[in-house]
């Protein structure tokens, strides 16, 4: 039987959540216009919401850090010998804990919204009400079906550990960052609801909303990037994106958020596209919810899926249905009245942004279809079917062509009415330069596929045009601050596409059966298998193979891929050994040795990986610059 200490902890943590539940219920009355609260009132109550959830979350962390195995969640997910960081991250590395974190982040966004000088009182009332409604929904799920504070009847002195593949510092911070993105869009959603309820969706509304979109978007981008970086060096599959359903689930809100990020600019500057903005806001948050739903319900079996319990899936589905039907009904009744007839010409920046919006949504639709289609076929035809990367690559590539073209041109076209000549004048030199570059590179590498040459040309033109127009040579200031963020992000995207293509074209991999002293060759690289070491780590033993990379018969680099054996639970993980070069990563992975005298080792040569990460980094930093610029002005 659990000790009195544990009983108390469990009780106060749960009680604290009940307090938050009650406050949130109370806050929901602001949905009705007859109630209006002053800022002080909101400040107090949102602080209570935040504090109660934070308190309960801290208790969860405390029981993890003290390895209190009276708690079911700690027993199932932790171990006394686990390093500190992973005891900590164990708190949110499971279904119940991550749900509590989701709620905590909801209250954090609610709190920061209230303290951030929100001048429109009517809007604030509605937003607070809607945020509280969301908090309430997830809290009910947490309290009724997945409480992290359930105690065990039996006594245990040791826990069952955590999946060792998840014992990685990047993975410890990946979920919180991703959640900050997902949940950040709850506030965007609340803005949409508030705007519709108050019949006020205008420039002012857009200005207040835009920084929140940016913040959530930055976190989401960063979260996805961290996850993919982890997959690259930990999973040892030699890639960074696998079109896994759960990865897709995070990509979909990103695509719709990116569309939203651009169309809010049109609303802010030109006071048009109201209902489109509202629709995208709702869509982005719904996709975040669907992302959670797909992962949590266990409909999709994947590395990411936590415990599959159909009851939980049903609850999330019910909640999703309520949220969506409520918001889309509101949209159906209010959408047409919100629209203002701001007109713009066929050739104008507005049109360009709208076209790019459509392109992003087309990619979103393709990804959605690929993720859902196997489920659909399974349901209707009772056949199993897998959608592979080939589907995504072939369908998305042509759209990326168009996306690159419109990203290059749109920022150069004037608002409301522009002309093709105006663009051509600005773009001609960079076009000539990119054409030359693309041609030279294609010839030099002797790999002349039309598709690749076109993508090469298009991404070069995006990068060069963006940089040219971003840089204005004035005396003190090389960059014009207001468009620094955009310049960085757009050029980063160009670089990203460019490197992805180059990487896909020039990647090589080969599998060898190697004995000690063997020499392996791949693409002019020579690897000598030197020896095998046995290493003892903090909570694992490992077998380490040592390979030397030779150049002119001299060792230039050493590779030490490992297989780690964990005791609790007994699992083996493969640690890849990567040497990062400026232009190319070399990547060695070994398989779990069987009863044999050779080991099986895979060698990958992955060119331009650094530039892929650099591209993503530039996209994120660009977003940050935009935020900083907005806050300063």
């Amino acid at each position: 039987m659990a000790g009195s200490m544990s009983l108390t902890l469990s009780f106060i943590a749960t009680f604290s959540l009940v307090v938050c539940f009650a406050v949130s219920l109370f806050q929901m009355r602001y949905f009705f216009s007859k109630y209006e609260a002053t800022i002080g009132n909101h400040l107090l109550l949102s602080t209570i919401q935040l504090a109660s959830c934070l308190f309960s979350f801290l208790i969860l962390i405390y029981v993890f850090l003290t390895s209190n195995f009276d708690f079911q969640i700690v027993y199932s997910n932790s171990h006394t010998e686990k390093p500190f960081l992973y005891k900590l991250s164990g708190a949110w590395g499971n279904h119940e804990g991550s749900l509590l974190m989701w709620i905590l982040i909801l209250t954090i966004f609610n709190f920061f919204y209230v303290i951030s000088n929100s001048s429109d009182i009517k809007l604030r009332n509605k937003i607070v009400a809607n945020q509280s409604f969301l908090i309430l929904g997830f809290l009910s799920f947490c309290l009724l079906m997945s409480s992290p504070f359930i105690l065990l009847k039996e006594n245990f002195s040791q826990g069952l550990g955590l999946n060792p593949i998840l014992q990685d510092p990047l993975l410890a911070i990946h979920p919180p960052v991703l959640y900050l993105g997902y949940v950040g869009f709850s506030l965007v959603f609340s803005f949409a609801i508030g705007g519709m309820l108050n019949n006020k969706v205008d420039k002012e509304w857009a200005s207040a909303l835009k920084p929140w979109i940016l913040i959530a978007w930055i976190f989401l981008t960063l979260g996805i990037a961290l996850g993919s970086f982890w997959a690259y060096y930990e999973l040892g599959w030699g890639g960074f994106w696998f079109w896994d359903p759960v990865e897709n689930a995070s990509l979909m809100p990103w695509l719709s958020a990116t569309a939203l990020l651009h169309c809010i600019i049109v609303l802010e500057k030109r006071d048009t596209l109201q209902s489109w903005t509202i629709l995208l806001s709702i869509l982005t948050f719904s996709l975040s919810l669907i992302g959670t739903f797909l992962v949590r319900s266990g409909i999709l079996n994947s590395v990411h899926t936590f415990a599959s319990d159909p009851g939980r899936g049903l609850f999330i589905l019910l909640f999703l249905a309520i949220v969506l039907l409520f918001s889309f009904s509101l949209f159906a009744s209010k959408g047409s009245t919100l629209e203002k007839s701001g007109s713009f010409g066929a050739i104008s920046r507005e049109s360009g942004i709208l076209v790019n919006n459509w392109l992003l949504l087309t990619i979103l639709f393709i990804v959605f279809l690929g993720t859902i289609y196997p489920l659909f076929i399974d349901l209707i035809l009772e056949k199993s079917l897998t959608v592979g990367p080939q589907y995504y690559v072939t369908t998305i590539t042509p759209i990326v062509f168009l996306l690159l073209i419109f990203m290059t041109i749109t920022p150069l076209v004037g608002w409301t009415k522009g002309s093709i000549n105006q663009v051509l004048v600005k773009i001609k030199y960079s076009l000539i330069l990119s054409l030359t570059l693309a041609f030279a590179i294609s010839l030099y590498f002797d790999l002349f596929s039309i598709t690749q040459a076109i993508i090469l040309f298009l991404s070069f033109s995006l990068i060069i045009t963006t940089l040219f127009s971003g840089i204005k040579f004035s005396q003190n200031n090389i960059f014009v601050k207001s468009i620094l963020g955009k310049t960085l992000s757009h050029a980063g995207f160009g670089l990203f596409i460019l490197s992805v293509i180059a990487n896909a074209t020039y990647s090589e991999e080969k599998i060898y059966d190697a004995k000690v002293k063997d020499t392996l060759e791949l693409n002019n690289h020579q690897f000598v298998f030197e020896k095998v070491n046995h290493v003892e780590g903090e909570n694992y033993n490992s077998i380490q193979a040592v390979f030397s990379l030779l150049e002119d018969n001299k060792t230039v680099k050493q590779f030490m891929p490992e297989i780690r054996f964990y005791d609790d639970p007994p699992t083996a993980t493969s640690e890849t050994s990567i040497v990062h070069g400026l232009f190319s990563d070399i990547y060695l992975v070994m398989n779990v040795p069987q009863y044999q005298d050779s080991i099986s080792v895979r060698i990958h040569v992955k060119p331009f990986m650094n530039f892929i990460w650099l591209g993503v980094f530039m996209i994120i930093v660009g977003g940050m610059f935009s935020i900083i610029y907005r806050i300063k002005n």
Partner: protein
Amino acid sequence: MKNKIIYFIPIVVTLFMCLFFFFSLSNDTSKLSSPIIGKKVPEFSLVSLFQNKENFNSSALYSKTPKIVNIFASWCVPCRAEHDVLMLLSKLEGVEIYGINYKDDPIKAKNFINELGNPYTNVGIDEQGRTGIDWGVYGIPESFIIHNGKVIYKHIGPIHISELDDTILPILKDLK
């Protein structure tokens, strides 16, 4: 006014999606074919649910006599329904059933076996479900007939007593 209709499209789409998800959630996937058939069993080493037994390794399945691998969990209701059939099967001569306890609490799994009887020669704990993924689990219970380390047959869902006579036993007989 006719433009107003497009504002209702999201609701319609949402309704369809929710219905679709609802049916997916309760979808019976027992008729799925599996790519694992004819292949070697995935490599694994799982801690035994029984304290006095060694780990349950894939090497245990490399044998001339056919083995049955049953993936189950205490939270899974159809597993309960199937258990009597497994008990019956285990009493037949020369049949060994191995269990993989999928995404379950080991204590609950033990209670489950204590309560309903133990048809298993050994049971491996697969709490995180990683081995289950390697076996290509869609929904449990699932049972596999293994011969010389190769997957011969896969049964999704609970084995009904009639299926025992119609399919499982004839396959076992052929292999012997």
